Structures are given as structure tokens and as C-alpha cells.
């Protein structure tokens, strides 16, 4: 009797759990993706339930990209990480929490949506800022956060560097160019949102270097009558990456859901959500539907040989960025 009941019960439990499991995922992300992910999570949960019957609850954690990476390294049980730059996920991979070739597990460098760096200027563009070259003019005040503490700020820095490299032609000239931009920076905020606040609310600066999606949000939030977006001729393709954390999903048994979650970015719905939140979708059909400004984009791999190399050259202790502030 008993022998027959136990497998029956076990079978029943497996069956019910297969019918309507309750899973929860923790997505550790960076600051300006709050709105993006609350929309994405809702959409994914609905789609996943329709397909499998399982209910997924996704918890979001936001903060500076680097400090989020450190939290995961220090034991925050993130099923997936969706950070501002690949270097931060590499740092987690270097601790053995996920496989080192994580960037090859999903299409397009595991970054399903991209953005670029644009300028936000005051209405009417009183200083006539059109391109990167205007930022080194004496008397122009540029607002950008500190690349040491802000992942977003590193994209700003590399965008300026890439432009200088392409138009001036040499590393030395690029260094001078970027150095001259930072001579015009009166405040180094620790994060991208802080820099936006300095520019928008404190009235400091003539131009804010910002992610395109942040610039759109700022204009939407604070009014078209106060700010406008200037798109430079050349800029960087910012590729915020996503990855699942192997050690966590294996422990929690959430690998399948986490995989589905990240794959969902590459569906039409996922791409549409990215575009609605002012991120450039990878899907060209959807990208064309939304009017993103035309701009010549270069990637970090093309000009800098990837994040690790860019990081060691420019942002580590004693790197180029430190040298800019030596003089």
C-alpha cells in the first residue's frame, strides 16, 4: 500500500509543479533601466505563462553598474545580470560565477538593445554646439559623470575618444582632445542620473553628454521647451549586455526560465519594448519604425579591442583618464 502511494504522491507533486510552477527571478541591473525592465518583465511574464502555464515573478535591483557587479560577486543571488557594460559582467565571470564566454551565448554580443551617446543642450542651443569639436572650445561647460564611478560615463569618454581618433588620426591627438573636453568639465558626478540632475536642475553647464535614451527621457520629463537633443556626426554604439549567472541558476534550478527571459529580448515584442523606451533595437524592421537619428556608429571592439583592453588603457589606476587629471 505504502509503496504504491509514495511514488503516486511524488508523481502527483511533479505533475502539479509542471502544471503551475511559481518561479521567481532576480534581475540585477543598472540605474536607468528601471522603466525599461518594469515593462519588459510584465510582458515576459504574460508570454511565459501563456506558453508554459508557470507564473514568473521578476524582482529588479538597480544601482550603479559597477557596484551592482560587486554585489553579485559578493553574493547577491542574481539569476540574470543586465549591466551597462560587458566589463562589469566580465568581472563577475572572472570570479567563476558564470562562464567566461558568456557574450557568445546570445546573439549580437549578448546585447539585445543598444544606445549611443548624444548631447543634451538648452533650448535654442545658445552656444551653437553641433559636434564633438565644439566641446573643446574655451568657455563651453560640459557635464559628464566620473568614468571611474559610472559605467555610462565610460561610454561618453570612449565616444569622444573614438571621434577624435577618427577625425584627428592619432592616439596622441585623441588624448589631447579628450583632455581638453575634461578641462571644460566643472563637476564630475558619481553617476549618470546625478549628472543629469546637475545639468537639468542646477542649471550648470552648456551641454550634457548622455545616453540617447536618457536624453529622450530628460526631454520627455522636463519639457521640449527647455532642452533639445543634438546628435553628433560620429558616436559610439553603446551595447549594454545581458547574461545569466550560471552558479545561481543551477543552484536555484531556474536556468530554463532565465534563458527564456533573456531570449525574449530578441522577439518582436521584446524589441518593440526596447524601442518604446528609447533604446535602439537590434531588429532593423522595428528600428525603422521608430525614428532614431542617423549617426555614424563605431563599436568598442572596432576601435578599442574590447572592454578589457579599453578598461586597462583608460580607466584603471594610472590609466589615461588619471593622467588627464595629473596636470
Amino acid at each position, binding site marked *: 500500500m505504502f509503496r504504491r502511494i509514495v511514488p503516486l504522491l511524488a508523481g502527483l507533486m511533479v505533475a502539479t509543479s509542471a502544471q503551475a510552477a511559481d518561479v521567481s527571478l532576480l534581475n540585477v541591473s543598472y540605474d536607468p533601466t528601471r522603466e525599461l525592465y518594469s515593462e519588459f518583465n510584465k510582458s515576459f511574464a504574460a508570454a511565459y505563462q501563456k506558453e508554459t502555464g508557470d507564473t514568473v515573478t521578476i524582482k529588479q535591483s538597480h544601482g550603479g553598474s559597477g557596484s551592482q557587479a560587486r554585489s553579485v560577486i559578493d553574493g547577491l543571488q542574481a539569476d540574470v545580470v543586465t549591466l551597462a557594460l560587458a566589463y562589469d559582467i566580465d568581472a563577475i565571470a572572472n570570479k567563476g560565477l558564470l562562464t567566461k564566454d558568456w557574450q557568445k551565448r546570445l546573439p549580437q554580443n549578448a546585447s539585445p538593445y543598444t544606445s549611443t551617446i548624444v548631447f543634451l543642450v538648452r533650448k535654442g542651443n545658445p552656444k551653437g554646439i553641433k559636434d564633438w569639436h565644439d566641446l573643446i572650445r574655451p568657455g563651453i561647460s560640459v557635464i559628464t559623470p566620473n568614468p571611474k564611478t559610472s559605467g555610462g560615463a565610460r561610454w561618453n569618454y570612449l565616444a569622444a575618444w573614438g571621434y577624435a581618433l577618427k577625425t584627428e588620426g592619432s592616439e596622441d591627438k585623441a588624448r589631447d582632445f579628450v583632455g581638453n573636453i575634461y578641462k571644460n568639465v566643472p563637476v564630475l558626478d558619481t553617476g549618470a542620473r546625478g549628472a543629469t540632475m546637475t545639468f537639468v536642475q542646477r*542649471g550648470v553647464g552648456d551641454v550634457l553628454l548622455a545616453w540617447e535614451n536618457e536624453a529622450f527621457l530628460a526631454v520627455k520629463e522636463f519639457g521640449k521647451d527647455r532642452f533639445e537633443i543634438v546628435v553628433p556626426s560620429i558616436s559610439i554604439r553603446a551595447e549594454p549586455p545581458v547574461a545569466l549567472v550560471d552558479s545561481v541558476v543551477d543552484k536555484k534550478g531556474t536556468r530554463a526560465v532565465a534563458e527564456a527571459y533573456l531570449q525574449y529580448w530578441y522577439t518582436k515584442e521584446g524589441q518593440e519594448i526596447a524601442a518604446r523606451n528609447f533604446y535602439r533595437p537590434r531588429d532593423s524592421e522595428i528600428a525603422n519604425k521608430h525614428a532614431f537619428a542617423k549617426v555614424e556608429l563605431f563599436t568598442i571592439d572596432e576601435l578599442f579591442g574590447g572592454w578589457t583592453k579599453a578598461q586597462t588603457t583608460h580607466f584603471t589606476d594610472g590609466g589615461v583618464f588619471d593622467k588627464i587629471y595629473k596636470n
Partner: protein
Amino acid sequence: MSAIARRRSLPGFGLTMGLTLMWLSLMILIPLAGLFVKTAELSLSEFWATVTAPRTLHALKISFGLAFAAACVNLVAGLLIVWALVRYSFPGRRIFDAIVDIPFALPTAVAGIALTTLFAQNGWLGAPLAELGIKVAFTPLGIFLAMVFIGIPFVVRTVQPVLIDLDAELEEAAESLGASRLQTIRRVILPSLTPAVMTGFALAFARAVGEYGSVIFIAGNLPNVSEIAPLLIVIRLAEFRYADATAIAVVMLLFSFLIILVLNRLQHWAQTRSLAGA
């Protein structure tokens, strides 16, 4: 120790001492020990290079120097506030008394953002000051202001009870013996307040040295200009250079400890002197 143990009249020494030690270890000593363990990953020369780098020295100078200046201002301002609150009765005194605690309760980041809004070039106070050519927000002056803001309650709250307890009879006695008002303050009141004042000073100073949240928004954070030591620690963490970060923290800790120790000795000295004088 054994002398104390023999003479004690209340039971429970063993238990309370044990709990005290355990709690101190768990909450303070073990985390601090972690700091030293992490720093020990550096060789002695690496440690030295980190803490004597010009940028580190500048950040330490900014943090300690401005914290010291802010604590000095708080000492004087705090004394005046305490005097007004304790010795005089005026409408709204209780409200003023409560306001003093606000910097304690306010999240530091909120304080920092509020101060920055106020003192930015388009802020209520920042705009008129900018016309006079004084830039506050995003300069060391802004850091100093934030440190004054968060430090003031420390002086007020340590001195206040002592002044309340100070017997008015002492002053009356001094006066009846022919002391002038100034002499009474100098010879009677100030010496009794000195130990509390110095404790308040030390607390305000220590808090300002480690202050991050309220300072970071108003500082401007330019390396070698307005970069505070706690920010430099955060930057080293952002570079995943934990050992370098803790090295700076260790220096701050030792330096603060030294200063507090000196202040403690001075306070002890002032106390025995005032007791001998009385």
C-alpha cells in the same frame, strides 16, 4: 580588573562584560579587522605607494582639513546655540531645539541634494553669492558647508545636558565674590563645559571625515581639487581594487583614531584640571 571585580556590589558583571565584548567584536572589531586583513594583501611598498600618491594625499587633506575646519565652526556655533536654548526662554524654543536634530535624522543624500539645490548657481542662496563672486556648490567651500551641516547636532547635544546641569549657584557665588560677567564665563562656566565641548568637537570631526552622502552631491568631485577621501575609496572599489580601497580606509581609521585619542587625553586633562580648580 580583579580589584574592580572584588569590590563590585551589583551582580552580573561577568554576563554584561561578556555580552559587551561579544557585541563589540561582532559589530565593530571583526568588520574592522576585515579591513586590515584585506589591506594585508598589499606588500608594504605597495601600501606606501597607494597612501602617499599625490591624489590620495590631496583627498586626505581635503577630508581631514575641511572636517577640522567644520568642527571648529560647529564648536563655536554649537556653543552659542546651546547657550540660547538653555539660558533663555523665547517663543518657539522647543521647535528650535527639535530642529537641531534634523541633520541626525535626515538621510545624508537628501541633505546633500538639498544643500546643492540651495547653493547651486541658480539656487536661492547660491545665486546672490555667485553675484558676489563666491562659488559654493561644486567647490571645497561646498564640502565644508555640508560638513558643518551634518556636524552641528553633535556639539549641541553633548554640551546641552552639561550646561543644563551646571548649577546657577556657582555663577551667583562667583558674582557675589566680585567676578565680572566675563570672568565668570571664562573661569567658571567654560572650564566645566570644556570636556563636553571637546567630546562634541571630536564627534563632529569624526563624522565629517567619513561623511559621503551629503558631501558627494555638492563637492564637484574633481581629482586634486574637490575630491574627498571616501570618494577615492569608492573609486578604488569601482576599479575592483579592494586592497587599495581598504588601504586608504586604514589610513583614515588610524589617523582618526589618533586624533580622537589626543582629544580624549586633552578632555581627561581638562576634566581633572576643572575638578582640581573647583
